[in-house]
């Protein structure tokens, strides 16, 4: 089981991976088109009163808190955990 939590709740300073976007289809596609593709790694760069600065696929993005609530992420594992 991996734990999916909103980006806004993710411990700051740690890299994570996008697993889902909880938003209408329009916004979901918009994010994909802007380069925030599923499974991309998010590198946090900074935080300013709840707004986030992140690096994804080589581009920098500013996100408001509301947007960070919609992006579900999981921790990045160095090696894929094996089950069973």
């Amino acid at each position, binding site marked *: 089981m991996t734990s999916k939590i909103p980006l806004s709740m993710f411990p700051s300073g740690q890299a994570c991976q996008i697993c889902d976007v909880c938003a209408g289809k329009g916004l979901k596609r918009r994010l994909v088109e802007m380069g925030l593709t599923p499974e991309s790694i998010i590198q946090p760069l900074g935080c300013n009163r709840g707004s986030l600065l992140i690096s994804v696929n080589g581009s920098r*993005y500013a996100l408001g808190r*509301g947007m960070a609530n919609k992006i579900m992420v999981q921790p990045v594992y160095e090696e894929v955990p094996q089950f069973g």
Partner: protein
Amino acid sequence: MAEKIKVAVAGNPNVGKTTIFNALTGARQKIGNWPGVTVEKKEGTKKHKGHVLEIVDLPGTYSLSAYSADEVVARDYIIDEKPDVVVQVLDSTNLERNLYLTSQLLEMGTNLVLALNMSDRAEMRGDDIDIPRLESLLGVSAIKTVANEGGGIEALLDSIVSKTESNPPKPHEIGYGKTVEEKICALEDILGNDTELTKHYPARWMAVKLLEGDENVLSKLSSSNIEGKVQNYLSGFDNEEYEVEMADKRYEFIGALLPQVCTTCAEDVSPSDMVDKVVTNKYLGIPIFLSLMWGMFELTFALGTPFMGLIGKFFGWLGGAVAANIESAWLASLLGDGIIAGVCSVLLFVPNIFILFFAIALLENSGYMARAAFIMDKLMYKMGLQGKSFIPMLMGFGCSVPAIMATRTLEDEKDRLITMLVTPFMSCGARLPVYILLAGTFFGREAGSVIFGLYVLGILVAILSAKLFRTFIAKGQPSPFIMELPPYTRPSLVNSLLYMWNQGYLYLKKVGTVIIGGVMLVWVLAYFPQGVEYGSAESLIGSLGQLIEPLVAPLGFDWKIAVALIFGVVAKEIVVGSLGTLYGTGGGESLSPALLADPSFSPAIALGLMVFTLLYVPCFGAVAVIKKETGSWKWMFFQAAYSTAVAWVLALVTVLVANLVL
């Protein structure tokens, strides 16, 4: 025979489209509409090898499925105008995302030339892009460019011209997987019945766009007899299902392509990120922003003042020469009291305004503007807006007209409406002459602080009004904020100068037309009826002024101020221009003593007048653009009435308080 070639420059935001456009067209640009953050298409021409290229700079867009008003402009131009060649500008350091738009353009069957821009950056970090291979895999021409240094521009021009001589390309096909492909096939079959339509647009492309719910393509069907069938078919399932899936497939296609053409060396932390660590820091961000703003205005005044002196001297001399050499009394009065006095009091401030536009261009070009939006996001959110709204508001310091147009980058209609309604409160360059004249005359050494206070007041009124509108008019939450931050660059001098010139030119044009017209009208009204003392209460303008004086009398304004304010609606500089004309002072600098000598003026009144000028109904230009951009008379009248009411109340408070304190 010169052959005309229609060329569109398209691409993601901040990849260097405008820089390429400037490099391609040089100064041969039509500046009918406002430049700046490109929100409306900008046109220019270029002759190359016997061809005439008509080049259009389009707003930035991530894809052809438009989300915001400026993206709609770009998409509609590409689909409807069908340019002969589309030059897509790409950021070579981020090919994956940039190629997404490429894949859509290829699907459409556009005649595509890729400008792989920022190749200096890509090379610096050691990327290697195999251009011939990219060209053969995609069936396009690709040129490496370094737009800000003019690198690759000639080759790009050659490539555009030779593209028109080759055969049009076959639309590129991307496989979308079995379920989607079935739907595409079915739609293609239906569309095939309308041969007129498929002659203009590839059927497969239309089918794909229909599945994605593209409104522009849907509207193309409205005149066709197959519309019913298509609607019927589409209503049979939920096409939203497929939107994201299709986007993923395009990335899959790119993912398969990229490793064949380029080896990238990703960098961990770029120099740009290090700057951001400081500039967007929780504690340092706002102080840094405020010092930059302060520096910008300081620069505007410090550099502008010597020029002001020169211009003042010149007009003083001109006024003297006119008075000495022109026999006819009325003509001398028209030229001296009317045009020279009026125009001078406005032209005096042209250097300041040019410098202000230059400073705004530097902020925008360096990439800092986007950071300011990020820093302000939280505050803006509290006030019912989002970070992105801050950019148009900042541009409002230059001029409200392009600032209101820049709200097109906001995706959400309500966010956009509120931003448009409050942007005119940001003190624009045209109000500067009023402050400099009045604050300089009545507050001497404190003039700087008074002017700074007015800017702050404008910001506060804008922010509080936004909160008010969000609570009562456009209820709801601001839309979630996301914005790409371009890397910092050394601002290009050419770009910034062109921006300054384009904006400043429009300002000069305004002086030459609207303002000369305005002050001439004031002169006529002040000179007639024949025989009365010029600009006295018995003149026509005196009667007019006395008619409206009661409206502003509670504020302590006399009829001359009332007249200046009425004419100031045309353009706010006219407040100063008409005072210059009414007091009939030859050179701008001598308006100060005339005001000081007039008992109906006092520091308190001057302060009230500045507050009123800052806040009351924005100029005709701004009002007209609000009408155009909101598409409604209602919002235009609302904005005009609301701002005038706010101005009246706050000016009254200012005068009352100032009378107690001063």
